[in-house]
């Protein structure tokens, strides 16, 4: 005989003021009052409105990218839905000899991958060090870096350009130049991962060191497996920043078309090149740029959230 667990359909509530015991429907069975419903409704209305505003450009971009280049113009038009759907724009981007899209895409990918690897290494090393080691000037370094981080990076743009030029890392050397720039100051972004490392009990490190591990072994064998969310978060961040960067890329590679990254390249099309002719191709390029990032995010968002909120690891 299986007995069904009875969820009581009434809650007993003692009304001290009146001195009586009342039976009240429990929260989950009570029908929502009209007032509550109205509030919920308006909240949803606002949220829906916001998401429409937020999504509209992207939907527009996707629609435009599928417009036939052969039968309709490649320019901006006054209608949203393409009259004829086609992959013309994509085909041109990926196959046409005059399209440098793949080259740009490749440049961006190289920069982003290098950054993801190097920057993750830098950020995690710096933050682990700041979290675990105690040395003179530690607090000072952390504070100075924090304050420095509040200045926009663009302030250093001109200096950096001349420095890179001296090293031959502009224009034709733009790809390594960009990697250098992104990675160089990345240790400054230690803050979130340090917070995460702080939540891993220090006695784990100590225990491992007594067990015979070197500091590096502790980091590799004990801390890294526990810090998976923050590693993924850091990789994602390090990958995304150069992936979508325009400002630094545009002046480092200034004038050297084969060394553009994808953002600069696409912008050149709609700006200096044939704006009318390239608009739908620009849109298709935009979709292609968004794809890997979106995929990465969807795959890793669970860790991403854990990484940002931190403290998810118990000792």
């Amino acid at each position, binding site marked *: 005989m299986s007995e069904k667990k009875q969820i009581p359909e009434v809650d007993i509530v003692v009304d001290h003021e009146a001195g009586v015991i009342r039976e009240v429907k429990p929260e989950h069975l009570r029908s929502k009052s009209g007032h509550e419903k109205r509030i919920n409704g308006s909240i949803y209305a606002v949220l829906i409105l916001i998401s429409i505003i937020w999504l509209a450009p992207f939907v527009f971009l996707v629609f435009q990218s599928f417009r036939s280049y052969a039968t309709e113009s490649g320019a901006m038009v006054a209608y949203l839905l393409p009259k004829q759907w086609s992959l013309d724009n994509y085909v041109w981007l990926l196959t046409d000899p005059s399209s440098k899209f793949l080259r740009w895409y490749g440049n961006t990918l190289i920069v982003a991958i290098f950054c993801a690897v190097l920057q993750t290494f830098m950020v995690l090393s710096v933050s682990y060090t700041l979290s675990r080691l105690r040395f003179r000037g530690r607090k000072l370094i952390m504070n100075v870096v924090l304050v420095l981080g509040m200045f926009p990076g663009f302030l250093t743009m001109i200096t950096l350009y001349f420095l890179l030029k001296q090293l031959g890392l502009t224009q034709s050397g733009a790809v390594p130049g960009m990697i250098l720039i992104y990675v160089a100051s990345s240790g400054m972004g230690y803050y979130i991962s340090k917070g995460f490392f702080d939540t891993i*009990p220090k*006695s*784990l490190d*100590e*225990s*491992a*060191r*007594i*067990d*015979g*591990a*070197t500091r590096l*072994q502790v980091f590799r064998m*004990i801390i890294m*497996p*526990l810090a998976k969310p923050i590693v993924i978060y850091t990789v994602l961040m390090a990958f995304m920043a150069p992936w979508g960067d325009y400002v630094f890329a545009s002046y480092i590679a200034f004038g050297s078309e084969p060394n553009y990254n994808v953002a600069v390249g696409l912008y050149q099309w709609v700006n200096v090149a044939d704006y009318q002719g390239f608009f739908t191709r620009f849109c298709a390029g935009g979709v292609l740029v968004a794809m890997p990032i979106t995929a990465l995010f969807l795959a890793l968002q669970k860790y991403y959230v854990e990484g940002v909120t931190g403290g998810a*690891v*118990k*000792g």
Partner: protein
Amino acid sequence: MASVTLEHVKKVYDKNVVAVHDFNLQIKDKEFVVFVGPSGCGKSTTLRMVAGLEDISDGILKIGDRVVNDVEPKDRDIAMVFQNYALYPHISVYENMAFSLRLRKMDKEEIHRRVCQAAEILGITEYLGRKPKALSGGQRQRVAIGRAIVRDPAVFLMDEPLSNLDAKLRNQMRAEIILLRKRVDTTFIYVTHDQTEAMTLGDRIVVMKDGYIQQVGTPQEVFDTPVNLFVAGFIGSPQMNFLKAKLIQSGNGYSVELLGTTIPLNPDQNQALAAKGVKTQEIILGVRPEHTTVLFDNKENAIECTINVNEMMGSELHLHLSSQNKDKIIVRLPTVDLSKEQRAQLSYGNKMYITFPAKVMHLFDPTSEKNLIYG
């Protein structure tokens, strides 16, 4: 297996905060030494210096004959059990225990043999495949101990290993540590703030306060002959009673004047005091709760008290009394011989009388707080 020697070891933190002052101790091979004291007394810091987790500011630390001041923890041949277990959460119990052996590149079969043997000793064989998360507190502590014993270390360090366990489990694990010690037979240094653990586990106890060693001795020595007020009050539960009294020298003998009664001292006490040249002076008299005799009727030289609180502990009662001049006194009274009438008498506000023989009295100087005989 090794001795541990600390010579003038000192720990100074930034801003000249001194955590440990001039620590001198010789720990013999296979000895079980307990550092005990209230929090902030420097006991954990000292242990961590032995482990190599804290730098030694000054002095010499030797394990065996080797000076290890600047030796990395991993090269000191020590194992340590932490208060919060510090198990590696991402690997199984087996891997936790095998971790140090793998780092040493030990033979796989040897690792397996050692881990299984340790698990057997600690009764955790069935949990070897689990992650630490799936274990209870007591089981985790066993794994932490297992992780230490597989290494067969020269020195076994334990930093308040039982503090995170509930009272019942703590008693059980305490007994198991005594057994373990018999099986492992190596040098142990054990840190605790719990005087019961210190008394039951240690061959010798090191009582610490504010970074200074107060007394080193066997549990019996520390209990019987505390050198100062702090040690007297810290060791023993309930705490030793302290009463204002007067020591009177008359001829070759001494007596203690307390609340209108006069208690002459024993010959050996007289001798010791005379040898130290103690004169008539105010003293603080220390008497342990278990050394007092409770009387229901007045008798010569008995001290009259009023009952404030009667704590029933089962086999005994803890009576909180106050004397005529408001001294607080706690006495322990076994319940087994009490008649019904006597029990009825032990309630709030009733009068009681207590006596104690001279041999259980500890005499402390009020200013230096030192024991006049042993200090």
